[in-house]
């Protein structure tokens, strides 16, 4: 590994993505609402009709992404009035293009699902329940895409931190999205006084958080071998792991052992999971932009030993 | 917001070089908030049109940011 990289008077070699915090917020909400839709659909199809309240809340939660998602994305365009050009063509080489279609499909079907659920809840006659049950299937599929395509969006750039571990970053984003959905739905269950399925959702969140921590560990190994890892990065990721991973895991565990009395702890765990998910997306975005602006990092990353093997 | 009048000398993408009536030459970049689309400017160059421009001073480079362009 070339450690004594020369630079051009320390002038940046790459340009950071001109994305504001809005993009990180979108990435987070896309994951939260996409995964909620997925969890709600599975609960509806496999829960034997006993998880109605959970299904309803999941469907409503997914509307967050449907309604706010496109607004956030359009806000971050530098010529917003031309947003429709996104749907002018389809490009398989561009996750931004792939994502525009995933978002479109997700928006249409999750709006349909949520809308039908809303009418059904008002006890208005009609095939509303069935409309929701059918529309939820494509919505859930697209919801899975919403949870992870944003990782592909960041990875398919030349920004060193994002490009250094494409696969593990996607695993991280996906599991963090599932954890957030589990946490948000568990909070909904507990705060609305439901007695039933908080524990099941906690279990889902715990599984997802564990996968996330493991993927974070493996991606950090990639960062180290590819030379995009420094003291600053280590400090940032350690705090992100602690805040969004170890802290909620500890709280969930404590809440589990305390049984009924542990309810507050479980709620705290859910909140920590939600905050941690957002913090991870923000950190990923800003640390990535910083890695692009640092010529030592980008020139070190662009060394032959980091080339994909088949292409070196 | 300031206004200036002059003759359009050159148009490239969303950039427009204008000979101001004061005699100086000024480069304008058409703001994305402006209703004018850059491709509509081509005919101003062909006609070497006289225009009135409402603009702000840019702080990201040596240019002014045009918000409204009116042919006069």
């Amino acid at each position, binding site marked *: 590994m070339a450690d004594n990289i020369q630079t051009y008077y320390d002038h940046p070699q790459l340009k950071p993505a001109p994305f504001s915090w809005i993009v990180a917020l979108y990435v987070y909400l896309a994951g939260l609402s996409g995964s909620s839709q997925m969890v709600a659909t599975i609960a509806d199809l496999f829960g034997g009709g006993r998880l109605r309240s959970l299904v309803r809340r999941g469907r409503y939660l997914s509307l967050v992404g449907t309604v706010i998602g496109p607004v956030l994305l359009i806000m971050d365009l530098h010529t917003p009035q031309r947003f429709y050009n996104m749907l002018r*063509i389809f490009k398989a080489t561009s996750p931004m293009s792939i994502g525009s279609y995933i978002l479109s499909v997700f928006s249409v079907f999750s709006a349909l699902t949520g809308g039908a659920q809303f009418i059904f809840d008002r006890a208005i006659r009609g095939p509303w329940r069935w409309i929701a049950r059918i529309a939820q299937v494509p919505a859930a599929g697209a919801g899975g895409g919403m*949870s992870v395509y944003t990782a592909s969006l960041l990875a398919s*750039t*030349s920004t060193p931190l994002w490009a250094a571990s494409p696969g593990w970053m996607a695993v991280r984003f996906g599991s963090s999205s599932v954890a957030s959905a589990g946490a948000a739905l568990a909070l909904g269950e507990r705060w609305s006084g439901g007695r039933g399925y908080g524990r099941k959702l906690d279990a889902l969140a715990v599984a997802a958080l564990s996968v996330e921590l493991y993927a974070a560990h493996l991606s950090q190994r990639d960062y180290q071998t590819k030379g995009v890892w420094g003291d600053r990065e280590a400090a940032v990721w350690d705090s992100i792991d602690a805040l969004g991973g170890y802290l909620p895991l500890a709280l969930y565990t404590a809440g589990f052992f305390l049984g009924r009395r542990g309810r507050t702890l479980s709620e705290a765990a859910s909140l920590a999971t939600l905050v941690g998910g957002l913090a991870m997306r923000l950190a990923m975005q800003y640390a990535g932009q910083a890695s692009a602006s640092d010529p030592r990092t980008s020139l070190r990353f662009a060394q032959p030993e980091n080339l994909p093997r088949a292409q*070196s | 917001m300031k206004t200036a009048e002059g003759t359009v000398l050159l148009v490239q993408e969303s950039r427009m070089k204008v000979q101001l009536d004061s005699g100086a030459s000024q480069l304008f970049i058409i703001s994305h908030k402006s209703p004018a689309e850059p491709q509509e400017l081509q005919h101003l160059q062909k006609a070497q049109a006289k225009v009135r421009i409402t603009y702000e001073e840019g702080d990201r480079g*040596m240019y002014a940011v045009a918000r409204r362009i009116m042919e006069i």
Partner: protein
Amino acid sequence: MQIHPRAREYPDSQFSRPIRDESELTAGVKIEPGKSYGFFTDTTRCIGCKACEVACKEWNALPADSVGLTGMSYDNTGGLSASTWRHVAFIEKIGHGGGRATEMAPYQSNWLMMSDVCKHCHNAPCLEACPTGALFKTEFDTVVVQQDVCNGCGYCVPACPFGVIDVNLDDGKAHKCTLCYDRLKGGFEPACAKSCPTDSIQFGELAELHRRAAERVQELHRLGVESAYLYGTPGAPGATGGLEYLNAFFLLTDAPEVYNLPRAPTRASNRVMPSLLSGLATMAGFAVAAVALFAGASRNGR
């Protein structure tokens, strides 16, 4: 250098109208749609006059980024940007490593100068990333942003492995070197190449430029500049990771990093499928876990 026979048809020093196929006279190449064009930038010939920077700014009506001084070398431009499409880098070599130089190698030995530009990559990552199709390959095999399509999403900016393209936040569109698309359509050589007094920037058909460049490297090796090599030709540094080759390539005499160039850039779209598929596999895994969890819920009667 030979004078093109057509040049004799234009003995005047002032012209009332453009010369047809002018590039034939100035660059020795006729510009025809369907062929591949590019730049060969031979840094051993660069004298750092910045005529290319100025010619580019003038032709394209580009503003200066600032009038300040960077305080490093003679480079007060800094780098390429949305409004700087040619950038002359200055690298001071003399006295490098502490000691005072007592001898000097031939060709640009104490100052390295290089006119940087968009590489017009064969598999251009900016183009592959652009979701609107604003970035496209022209009939001259160059990469250009269509200003009437670009919506300023900014995704091309991090996609470029060379840090070239950028969005101007005032007009909200992405900008970069167009390889003088408008001039090519009119039969003119690009402004920078035409203005270069030493022919450090050469414009032409790619195959011919590759031939010329290989010859120049051999010539330099013969003259004792063993460090001369090409950057961006097939198989060379800069043309790695699936980029295949760069239509604007360079002859360098020091490590790529010295010129702020990546040694082994990659094609960003390589990573679309690996990341998307691992992500979707993760979600499928969690879907199965959720099925198990909720199916259990119904069976336990909870």
